[in-house]
C-alpha cells in the first residue's frame, strides 16, 4: 500500500498543504517543531482513524480553527482509493447543521469517507489501509504498564480482524455495565443471592467476550513472538521471549468483587511479559535493549500486518533512527525499509551515512524539506 498524495487543511500548523509522495522511502528533514511528525500524524489519521501521538481531534485543529480536513490518495493491490476525514468542532447551533433532521442525540462531528462512501466506524477504515507507526514514545510499550502492551495488541488486531473489534467493544461495554452494577451493589451492600441473580446475565457475556478476545490475542502473540525473537537476536544477540498471560474471567472472585465494586478478572487485566535472557525487560533491560525490544515488536507487527493484509503496510518512522545507536540503526534498516516508508529526521547527514553503509541510499525515492507550513521535494540528499 502506498500513499500517492495527501492534502491537509487547518491541521495543526498546516493551513493548507498538498503534497505528492513517492513509492519506497520518503525522507522528511527539518528542524524540531517544523511539522514533520504532524504530516506523519495526518497520514496515520487517514489510515487508521486516530493519531499515533494519542492526540484527540480537538488538539489537531489549527489554532483558532473549528474544523480540519484531510484527504489522502493511496494505491494498493486493488487500485487507487481516496480517504477523507473531516472533523468539525461543535459550537452552539452546529448540532443542527450537521445532524440530519429528526435525529436524536449528539451530532456527528467527524465524517470519514472512503471513495466517497461514509465509513461509520473509523475502525473499519483501519482494515483497508495497513499502516504501522513507530515513534520514540513507543518505548512505553516496554517501560509502561500492561495497558500499553494490551493497547499494542488491540491496535494490531483491530486493524486486521473485524471480529476482534466487535468482541473487544462488546467486552468493554459489558465490563463498564458490570462495574457500574458491582459498584452500586457494593454501596448498597446487596445480599449474595440477589447479587448473583443480577450479575449472571453480565457474567455470561463477559465470560464469552473475554474468552473470544483472549483467543485472538493468544493467536496473534503466537505468530508475533518468533518473528520478534529473530529480529532481536540480529540486533542484540540475546534471547527475547514474549509470554502472553491471559487473566481468565473467574466467577469465583465475585465475593471480593462485591466488596470492592470492581471486576477483578478478565481480558482487561491481560499481560504480555517480555523477557531478555530470562529477566523481565521492563525492569532489568538497559535503555538500549528496551529500544531493541520495541523495535523487534514493531518488526513483528509489520510482518503480521503484511501477512494479514496481503500487501506491504505503510510504515511511519518518526524520529526513530536518531534514537538508536549507529550500529543498531544500521542493522535494522534493511529489515524496516521494505514497503513505502516515511522517515523523519533532524539530521539528514547521519541518516545518509547509515543508508550508505547498508547500500540503501537507492531505496530513497524522495527527499523532502519541511518548514514554515510547507513541504518541498528536493532533487537529492
Amino acid at each position, binding site marked *: 500500500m502506498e500513499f500517492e498524495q495527501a492534502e491537509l487543511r487547518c491541521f495543526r500548523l498546516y493551513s493548507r498543504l498538498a503534497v505528492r509522495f513517492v513509492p519506497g522511502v520518503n525522507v522528511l528533514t527539518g528542524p524540531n517543531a517544523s511539522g514533520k511528525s504532524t504530516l506523519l500524524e495526518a497520514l496515520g489519521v487517514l489510515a487508521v482513524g486516530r493519531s499515533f501521538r494519542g492526540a484527540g481531534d480537538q488538539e489537531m485543529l489549527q489554532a483558532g480553527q473549528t474544523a480540519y480536513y484531510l484527504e489522502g490518495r493511496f494505491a494498493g493491490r486493488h487500485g487507487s482509493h481516496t480517504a477523507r476525514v473531516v472533523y468539525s468542532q461543535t459550537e452552539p447551533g452546529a448540532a443542527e447543521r450537521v*445532524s440530519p433532521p429528526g435525529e436524536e442525540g449528539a451530532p456527528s462531528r467527524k465524517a470519514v469517507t472512503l471513495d466517497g462512501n461514509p465509513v461509520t466506524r473509523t475502525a473499519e477504515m483501519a482494515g483497508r489501509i495497513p499502516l504501522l507507526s513507530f515513534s520514540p514514545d513507543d518505548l512505553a510499550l516496554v517501560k509502561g504498564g500492561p495497558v500499553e502492551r494490551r493497547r499494542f495488541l488491540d491496535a494490531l488486531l483491530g486493524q486486521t480482524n473485524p471480529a476482534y473489534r466487535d468482541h473487544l467493544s462488546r467486552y468493554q461495554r459489558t465490563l463498564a*455495565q458490570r462495574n457500574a*452494577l458491582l459498584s452500586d451493589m457494593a454501596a448498597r451492600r446487596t445480599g449474595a443471592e440477589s447479587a448473583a441473580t443480577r450479575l449472571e*446475565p453480565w457474567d*455470561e457475556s463477559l465470560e464469552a467476550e473475554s474468552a473470544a478476545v483472549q483467543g485472538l490475542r493468544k493467536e496473534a502473540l503466537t505468530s508475533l513472538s518468533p518473528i520478534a525473537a529473530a529480529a532481536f537476536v540480529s540486533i542484540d544477540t540475546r534471547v527475547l521471549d514474549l509470554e502472553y498471560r491471559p487473566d481468565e474471567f473467574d466467577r469465583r472472585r465475585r465475593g471480593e468483587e462485591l466488596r470492592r465494586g470492581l471486576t477483578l478478572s478478565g481480558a482487561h487485566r491481560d499481560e504480555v511479559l517480555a523477557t531478555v535472557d530470562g529477566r523481565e525487560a521492563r525492569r532489568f533491560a538497559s535503555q538500549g535493549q528496551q529500544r531493541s525490544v520495541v523495535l523487534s515488536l514493531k518488526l513483528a507487527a509489520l510482518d503480521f500486518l503484511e501477512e494479514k493484509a496481503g500487501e506491504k503496510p505503510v510504515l511511519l518512522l518518526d524520529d526513530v533512527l536518531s534514537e538508536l545507536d549507529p550500529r543498531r540503526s544500521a542493522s535494522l534498516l534493511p529489515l524496516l525499509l521494505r514497503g513505502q516508508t516515511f522517515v523523519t529526521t533532524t539530521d539528514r547527514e547521519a541518516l545518509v551515512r547509515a543508508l550508505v553503509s547498508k547500500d540503501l541510499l537507492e531505496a530513497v525515492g524522495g527527499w523532502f524539506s519541511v518548514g514554515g507550513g510547507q513541504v518541498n521535494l528536493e532533487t537529492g540528499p
Partner: protein
Amino acid sequence: MSHYPDALARLVQEFMRLPGIGPKTAQRLAFFVLRMEERDVLALASALADAKRKIQRCQVCYNLADAQPCRICSDPRRDSSILCVVEEANDLIAMEKTRTYAGLYHVLEGCLSPLEGIGPETLRLPELLKRVKAGGTKEVILATNPTVEGEATAMYVARLLKPLGLKVTRIARGIPVGGDLEYTDEATLARALEGRRDM
C-alpha cells in the same frame, strides 16, 4: 428571545424542548407555523393534545394504546399462547410490520443498563411473570436488541422464566434478507458465521 413577540418566543421555546431541535430549527418551525392555514395549526394542536390524552400504556402488555386492553391484546384471532418480549413500543411496531407474527407481546419499557441506573425493578418484569404464571403461555420469544444491554436483558428474562418450564427462545441474528454478503458489515458477518447451523 427579547427580539421575538411574546407568543412567538413561547412557541420557539416549546419546540426547543423536543429532541434534536436546537434554537435555529425551532425558529424555522415556528415561522412555518405562522405561515400555515389556521385550521391546519388547530388540527396539529388538537392532534398533540389528543395523542397525549388518549394514548396510554396497555395494562396487559404495556404497548402504547388508545383502549384498555390494547387492540392486539383483545384481538381473538391472535395466538395467546405465544408472547414476544420487546424493549420498547417501536420494536413492537417493527415486529408487527413483518405480518408473520400472530402472537401477543410484552413491552419491557427499556433494557437493563446499570450505567444508567436501570435494573430489573425498573422494567415490566413482575408484570411479565404474573402474566406467564396465570397460565396459557407455551412459548416466550425474547426479541430484545442484539446490543450488549439487550442480550443481558434477554439472558436475565430467560433465567427468570426457566423455572416455569415453558419454551423460551431468542430471535436469531445475522445477515439481513436481501442483503449481499459483499456489502454486509464485517462485524455482522463475523457474528453470523459464529452463529451458523447444521443443514
